[in-house]
């Protein structure tokens, strides 16, 4: 597989064409929202979720935005992954995702842990694209901090 095909796995192109959880929910009931922008390319993402008071879980994740296939696919995959997840676990996953993406191809994302998002492993070889893949994850991190 070429580096380019390693970057643009079929799964990534699928998610970018058919994004999951796309379409921002109304603010009623949601208590965690973050808007993130990549000034280099103009990509932007708004992510919204509801953090339950009882189980401290992430619910009703929705997002909208525009950008390259990596940023859009990453938002779609992240939303699938964290729906229903305890916030502490999500924070750990965000940290691990960031570490893998900044590893310049040294670390791989575990498919058992990251699900479809493990397909973003190839991005770590393309330092200029790490910010694209991180955009939605930074939005969730920020939203959790605000909730």
């Amino acid at each position, binding site marked *: 597989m070429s580096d*380019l095909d390693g970057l643009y796995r079929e799964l990534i*192109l699928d998610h970018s064409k058919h994004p999951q959880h796309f379409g921002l929910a109304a603010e009623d009931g949601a208590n965690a929202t973050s808007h993130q922008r990549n000034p280099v390319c*103009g990509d932007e993402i708004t992510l919204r979720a509801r953090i339950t008071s009882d189980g401290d879980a992430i619910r009703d994740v929705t997002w909208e935005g525009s950008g*390259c296939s990596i940023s859009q696919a990453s938002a779609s995959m992240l939303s699938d992954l964290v729906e229903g997840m305890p916030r502490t676990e999500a924070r750990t996953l965000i940290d691990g995702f960031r570490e893998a993406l900044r590893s310049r191809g040294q670390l791989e994302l575990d498919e058992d842990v990251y699900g479809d998002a493990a397909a973003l492993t190839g991005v770590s070889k*393309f330092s200029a694209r790490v910010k694209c893949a991180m955009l939605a994850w930074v939005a969730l991190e920020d939203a959790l901090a605000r909730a």
Partner: protein
Amino acid sequence: MTSALPQTIPGLDAAALRADFPILGQQVNGRPLIYLDSAATSQKPRQVLDAERDFLTHANSAVHRGAHTLAAEATDLFEDARATVAGFVGAAPEQLVWTSGATMGLNLVAYAIGNATLGRGGASAARFALQPGDEILTTAIEHHANLIPWQELAARTGAVLKHIPAREDGTLDLDAAASLIGARTRLVAFTHVSNVLGIVNPVAELVALAREVGAVTVLDACQSAPHLPLDLPALGVDLAVFSGHKMLGPYGVGGLYGRAEVLEALPPFLTGGSMITTVTLDGAEYLPPPQRFEAGTQPVGPAIGLSAAVRYLGDVGLAAIHAHESALATRLGDGLRQIPGIRLLGDAAGVERVGLWSFDVDGVHAHDAGQFLDSRGIAVRVGHHCAAPLHRQYGITASVRASAALYNTADEIDELLDAVSGIRAYFGAES
């Protein structure tokens, strides 16, 4: 991809010139590098690298101070460089101020006018002072460097910032300009060639409109200086800026050109060493231009490198360079128009152009398109190219830009066209 155009343009042998540019000989991602990002920064020939290295190896010393032999030699080389670069744009040495680049030059002008507004520079600077309600005019196609300094100047002074609109085809609306430029217009800042559109703008017409009302004109010549014969005094602008690294020169050096009477009347922006005549603890008097605007240590080595760069451009010949790059632009534009799903930005017919096109690929984000091209060894710029308002006008946030220089060949344009024709299929955007 075939074309009826000749492979080489008479007067310029790009394939031979490439031998002077060491970086162009390398492979990227297993393919020969095709560098089509010269509007962002140009590559540098050996002659420029050697000139800077020779200076640092044999003559490096502080200029305009000291009595030792090296100091005198460095000063001579530095001032010779000024004369060479000034001559390149048709100016006298004292009309050229060294800057770190065009952004610095434009901010220098904006802050100098702000200082004049605060009463600095005495009676001769009063002509630049802005009153609340005075108008600063720029255009809808500017690089952020020729927009934000004027936004800030307007905010500081109470002046009003207005914009000459661009038509869908990328040309400036001169009818609108004629009605916008009026008694309250004090400054008109515009680009010679947009870094997104590549169209050569009608400088003479805009200067004539500005002169009628006594407005100061500021020209961004970044994308024209390396690509076409440039005579700034003949264009009639009051002030103009360019960046060394976009014209085969080093980073960290650029030029601010000014008409003598304008530079003489402007107060300084940065102050400190090297720009004074007498200093007391309470005040100072300043040197005439250009030194008045050159506080602190100057980029001496880069300036000497830039003088080697403009000598190189001059030896090849700007008319030949312009003809070569225009032919590449025609070949690229003609080829891109034939590829389904490609939209050219600023596709005006019958206008003079430099060798660049920006385009949108339907269904594929510019970053993805650029990544695909990179896998073929082709370097292009993707994003808004520091011209976000212009992209917004075209309803997009980013585009792909291919920009040529004297070292690019028709074969490289054909390789790019071949690669672009595969982008939408790769990303499944054809359905």
